[in-house]
Each structure stands twice: as C-alpha cells, then as structure tokens.
C-alpha cells in the first residue's frame, strides 16, 4: 500500500519534470536576468516592495492572459480582450449604482457581461465557424459601440465598489496583495481544469485536431464556446479588478492588455497554433512582460526606445526558446 503510494508520487514528480519544458525554465531565467539588469540601475529593483508591486500589477494581466491562454490552446485567439476588460470594469461599477444589491452583485454582473461577449464570440467561432481572429475583432467593435452609447446616455456610475477595491488592493494575508492571491486562485483553478478535467483534455485535443476530437464523440462546439465564454469572463474579471485598482472604470482601460496578453501566453511557451502549452509558462510570460514594461518605464526610457527594446527583447527571448522545430528531422 505504502509502496504503491510512493511509486505514485514518484511518477507524478517525474511527470512534472517531464512537463517542465525548457521553454518555461528559460522564461524564468529571463525574469531573473531582467531583474539583475534592472538592479544595476537601482538596487530597489530587488526590493520586496518593488517585487510585490510588480506581482500585484502582473495579476491583472495574469487573470486576463489566463482566458487568452485557454482560447489559444484551442488554436484560436481573442481580440475582443480590450473591450471585454472595459465592459467588465464599467458594468461592474455601473451595477453598484443600484443600491446594496447592485453593489453586492457588481463583480458578478461585470463578469456576466464579459461572458455575454464571450458567448457571442463562442457562437461565432464554434457554431458559425467564423475565424476567431475576425469575429472577436467584430464583437470588440460592438462592445466599444455599446459602451460609447452607454456612457453618453446613462450618466454612468463608474467608481469601484469597496469589494472591488478590496480585491485589487487589499490584504487578506499580511504581506500578500489580494490581487496576487486572486491570480493564484485563478491560476490553480486553471491548472486543475486544464490537466484534470475532461474539459481541459478536450481543449488540448481540439487544439491539436478538432476533427479527431469530434469523431471521438466530444461536443467540440460546446467546448469551444465554453472556452470563449471563460475568456470573456476572465477578461471582464480582470477589468473589474483593474477598476478596483484604479478605483474607477474607464473606457480605455483594456487597450493596454491585448498585445501583452498574447505575448505573455506565447512567451510562456504555448503554441499559438493550439494544443500545446502549460499554465506555468503563462505565469512566466506574464511576469516577464510586466517586468519588462516596468523596468523600461522606471528607467525613463523615451517611448521610442521603449518600443524598440520591448520588441527586440521579445524576439530575442523567443529565439532563445520559442522556435518551432525544423522541417527536416
């Protein structure tokens, strides 16, 4: 009995090592490298406050990139992230205008609105077979249109509720910002879902070969739709957290999350073609992107140089570990 269990845990560990592919290890190495480079500029880059601050800010991207990753694993992409984030934040704040009940349901309502966008995306991709790159672009435009109408017409309430603020900036555990805690919970749930559930398996299966998954009796369309709904929900949740962080919601708040979320997912070793990738990689990618942006900002790099370095660093890191195999074996 005992032996058996030991054997099991051994295989689990070796399985884990098997899964920790070199890409992720390299990504984490790059994080350390960045910090060390930063510390030449100022020792504060290694201070706990700075690191925690980075983790906290990374949490928003982390939550949003989680949704992006699920969709990317399917071999799809979600370009409606910017306005899903904004809708999540704006609608959560809007709900708060409706008394204590509204306030209590603010975050769920924001998430529900994001899920509605995800549902539209999901129906488009799964049932109408419209390429995700284009349907999500269109729903993004529609969401933007709705928010413009809404802002102009309904005298919106846009301050975050106490709960939103607490989730984004408070401390449940001393020393650990709640945002980080939330990201950890979202991350753990995602790892579980991706690795231990039929949904997760199906996501990988569909990402590799949808026709084979379908003929295996998987309801691939429902899985795809669910994944897009999850992505919409996570973007909107990210938006709600972000408005908690800024204590208010604003239209442009999602703009800064689209390209970074894609870059984070891919820097983390997830194949943009789908079917391959692990959440740990996404964590690394998110931290990498956040740190890079922060260090360039603090070093007062002018915007031009910032863009150039940002691009060059991403390419350099991908060249280091993100290359696809050569054709010839």
């Amino acid at each position, binding site marked *: 009995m005992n032996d058996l269990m030991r054997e099991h845990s051994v295989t689990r560990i070796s*399985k884990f090592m*098997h899964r920790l592919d070199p890409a992720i290890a390299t990504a984490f190495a790059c994080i350390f490298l960045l910090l060390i480079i930063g510390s030449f500029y100022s020792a504060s880059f290694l201070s706990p406050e700075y690191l925690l601050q980075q983790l906290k800010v990374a949490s928003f991207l982390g939550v949003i990139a989680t949704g992006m990753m699920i969709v990317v694993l399917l071999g799809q992409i979600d370009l409606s992230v910017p306005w899903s984030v904004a809708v999540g934040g704006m609608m959560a704040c809007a709900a708060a205008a409706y008394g204590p009940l509204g306030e209590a349901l603010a975050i769920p309502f924001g998430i529900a609105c994001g899920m509605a966008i995800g549902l539209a995306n999901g129906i488009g991709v799964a049932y109408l077979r419209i390429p995700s790159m284009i349907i999500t672009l269109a729903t993004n435009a529609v969401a933007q249109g709705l928010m413009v109408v809404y802002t102009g017409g309904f005298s919106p309430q846009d301050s975050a509720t106490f709960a939103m603020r607490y989730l984004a900036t408070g401390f449940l555990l001393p020393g650990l910002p709640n945002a980080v805690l939330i990201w950890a919970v979202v991350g753990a749930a995602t790892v579980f879902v991706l690795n*231990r*559930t*039929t*949904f997760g*398996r*199906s996501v*990988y*299966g569909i990402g*590799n*070969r949808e*026709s*084979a*998954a*379908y*003929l*295996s*009796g*998987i*309801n691939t369309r429902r899985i795809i739709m669910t994944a897009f709904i999850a992505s919409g929900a996570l973007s909107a949740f990210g938006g709600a957290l972000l408005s908690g962080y800024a204590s208010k919601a604003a239209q442009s708040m999602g703009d800064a999350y689209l390209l970074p979320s894609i870059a984070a997912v891919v820097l983390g070793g997830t194949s943009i073609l789908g*079917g*391959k990738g692990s959440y740990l990689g996404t964590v690394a990618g998110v931290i990498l992107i956040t740190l890079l942006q922060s260090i360039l900002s603090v070093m007062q790099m002018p915007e031009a140089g910032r863009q150039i370095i940002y691009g060059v660093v991403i390419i350099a890191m991908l060249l280091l570990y993100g290359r696809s195999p050569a054709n*010839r*074996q």
Partner: protein
Amino acid sequence: MTAPEKPAATPLFEMSGVSKRYGGVHALENAKLTVEAGNIHAILGENGAGKSTLIKIMAGVVAPDEGRMLLDGHPVSFRSPAEASAAGVTCVFQELSLIPDLSVADNISIAAPPRRFGLIDRKAQRVIAEEMLARAGASDIHPRELVKDLPLSRRQLVEIAKALAWKPRILILDEGTSALTAADVAEVFSVLRRLRSEGLALIYISHRMQEIAELADQCTVLRNGRNVASFPAATHSDGEIVEMMIGREYSRAFPPKPERVAKDEVRPVLECRKLGWADTLHDISLTVGRGEVVGLGGLDGQGQRELLLALFGVLRGTTGSVLVDGKAVTLASPAAAKSGQIGMALIPEDRKTEGLMLPMTVRENLSFAVLDRVSRAGVIDQEKEERLIEEMVQLLAIKTAGLDIPVGALSGGNQQKVVIAKWLMRKPRIILLNDPTRGIDVGTKQEIYQLLRRLAEAGAAILFYSTDYGELIGCCDRVLVLYNGSIRRELTGDGITEHALVASALNVGSENVGSAA
C-alpha cells in the same frame, strides 16, 4: 553469376550501412538496399520495421545518422525531396504530398511548372497534366479540380501522376495502393509494369501479400530496422516471407467463422431502413445482428464511407430511419452515437485527421473517447484511466516506448492500433470500421481479425468496410456490396467469393467477369 561478389554492372542505386535512431528507437540499423533498373523491388516488413524510414532516407526527407548511398556508383546525399527527385529518385509517400487547395494540374507540375516569360504557363501545364493523368490511368480526373475535392483513392492516382512528371529513374511507392480497391490497383499495376518495361526501377511497399506476389521481381525483408533477407520474388512462399517478417511461425490468417445461424434467429442490434443522404446514399436498408460481422464491399467511393458516417451521426439531412435494439434513434452527433444506450463506435478512415491527435501522448489519445466514463463531474479519475489504458495496451499489444510519448512517434500500424483501442475501451455494442487495416502489417491484421471475431462472439454487432476483398471474404458473415449509393447485392456464407465480390462491385452479371482482378 559466377562471381556474385563482383556484379557485371554497377547497380542503379545502392545504399549500405544505413542507421537512423529516434531517441532510443533504432528505426534502422546497418540497413542496405540494392536497386536495379527495369525491376520492381518490394520491401516487406511489419509495422515499424523501418520501411518508410529507409525510403525517406533515399528520398532526402530524413537524414541518416550513418550510411552511404550510391547512384550509378557515385556517392550521393540528398538534402531534400526536391534534390532527390532532380537526381531521379522520386517517392510517392505514405503520407500524401499533394497540396489540397491547388488544382490537380497545379499539383502535377508543382515543382517545375512549364513557364512562359518567367510565369507559369497554365495551358502547357494542363497538357502535361492530361498526359500524366493518362499515364497513371486516371484520365477521368479533371485537371482543374481541386485536390481536396477528390476522394482519397483518386488523390493517390494524382500522386502517382505527379511523381511521373518528374521523369524519375527510381520511383518509390510507399503503400501507394493501400487506399485503392482492386479495380484501381489493377490499373496502377499495369502502369507500373509499363514503367518497368521502360527501364525504371520501382520500389514498392505494401502490406498486401498478394500484390507483392503479383508484381515484385525482387524482395527485401526488414525486421526491427535490420535486413533479414533479400531474394528474387517467387523463390519463397507467402508463409515463409511472413515468417521472415514477424520472426516467428505464422498460422492461418483468419479466425474460423462460427456456424451460420438462420437469419431470423439473429437478434438485430443495428438496423436501418431506407437510409438516404444527398446524392450519395439511396434507400439503404440493412440489419446487423448481435455477434455478426457484416462487411461492406464494392469499389471505393460507392457510399460506404458515407453510410458509416451517417450511422455515426456525422451527416446532416439523412432520410429514412435508424433503429437500435428495435427502437428508433436519432443520431445527431458522434457524441450521441457513442452514448450509453446506443454504444456505437467508429474506427475512422484517416487516422491522422480523424482518429488521433498526433502531438498528444499515447495515454491522452487512448482515453480520449472514454473521458466521460473515467470522470466524475468532469474531473478525470486518473487511476481508473490508467487501469483501462494498461489493459488495452496489453490486449492489443501496442508497441510503444511509453504512454507519455506523442502518438505520432509510433509506426503507422501501432497508431492504427491506438485508434482501435481507444474505441474498444468503451466496450461498444455496435462497431463501425472504415477500412481499419489500411497500412497494417499481416501480423497485426491477424490480431485485428481475431479481435473482431472475439468482439462479435462477446455480442458486438460489427459493420466492416474494407477495400481488401480478402479481408471481407475471410472475416465477414455477410457482405453487402454497394454500388452507386445503394446495396447492390448481399453475399452470405460460401457465396462470399472474390469472383462474386468483383462482379457485383462492377455491377455486372457474374458471367461477364472472367479473369478480372
């Protein structure tokens, strides 16, 4: 012949000392091959013996770890298929190399299209296409048709036509006929014989022994990546050759069929009445009883595949009705078809796109169709999964370096076993098989035949489409021959003969068939 170590002329092509490893697997070890002009050379071996690897090295697709190749006595090494083809070595691959979105004509002249003013001359290209299609015995294919709109068997012919456009000196067919029916094969064979008479060297890989016997001049047998023997054809019997391939004694190919019971004593499990779909299926009525293996015969493309897909819930807008255990069912998706009360399984035709997720692990592929059974509330019970998988791997003797390697790294035959295994894990009551032994070696085929019979004995109802008449004859209790989307004839018991199969497949009276096939 007096001094065999010093042949009179240098052979056209020679390779020796060729080794190739994939991780721990020796795909080839010190393999050799000598090819003569005007000669058809068969390479035989079990799945995973290294046949494809050998010819991929010849054709410049795979770089060998060791070894050398001589063409006309001069050392050569090809860095790409194009280089090999330019040197006269052209391969029709086991995996198709046609571009689905381009037309047949575009594909045939793909690498070196005729040009005018530097641009592709489509008129000239069309002329070439028509000529090559004719040489490949496929002049009925329109050169402007897109390849993806052609059925698989036609694509194979286009593939051959394309290879011919290179004007090769050595033409390699790696299971180039595995998707073809007897009639198509006959046509291809006459083409190959003509090419031989024109002085080409042909290398031919097939798992169909009777094809080898009919066609080959020389045979080379591989086992586990090593040469076992090379000998002129007809110097050994089929049985001897098979024993060389599998390295053990070979018993008879097909398990015995049970005594036939009267038709009305068989309890029908699957029944369809007047099933129709688009222009492809018309008024198909059939029953498959408990414990029965019912074959589907006929030329390829007569609706057999669609019939299976219709039963499995893949086709929309079918007419007529399907009954399971006497009750009418609606099959709107594979998910519905595989569900509890119905318990249907479909072993699909193309394992690469329909059966497997090649980059995923053997484990993940095996349990993919039973995820609902090994999970509770959507959470996978890993121990249960493991148990079922191990059982299956043993039952089907799947040869793999582990459960956590990508299934794509297995040989073709073992991949096919994984496809079958993943469905057997559900213990299905109704099993639909779409040409399941394509590309499978005799040993494995035999295992599959036995398995089918065992499953039938255990109560499954089996509907089995095969392009190999021998299989239909050997395995099936009844065979339904399809022609143009309807059942043309039902053969039973001793009435299942090659003669009858061919005759009804061609939709001619049996008296007209004479020596066909």
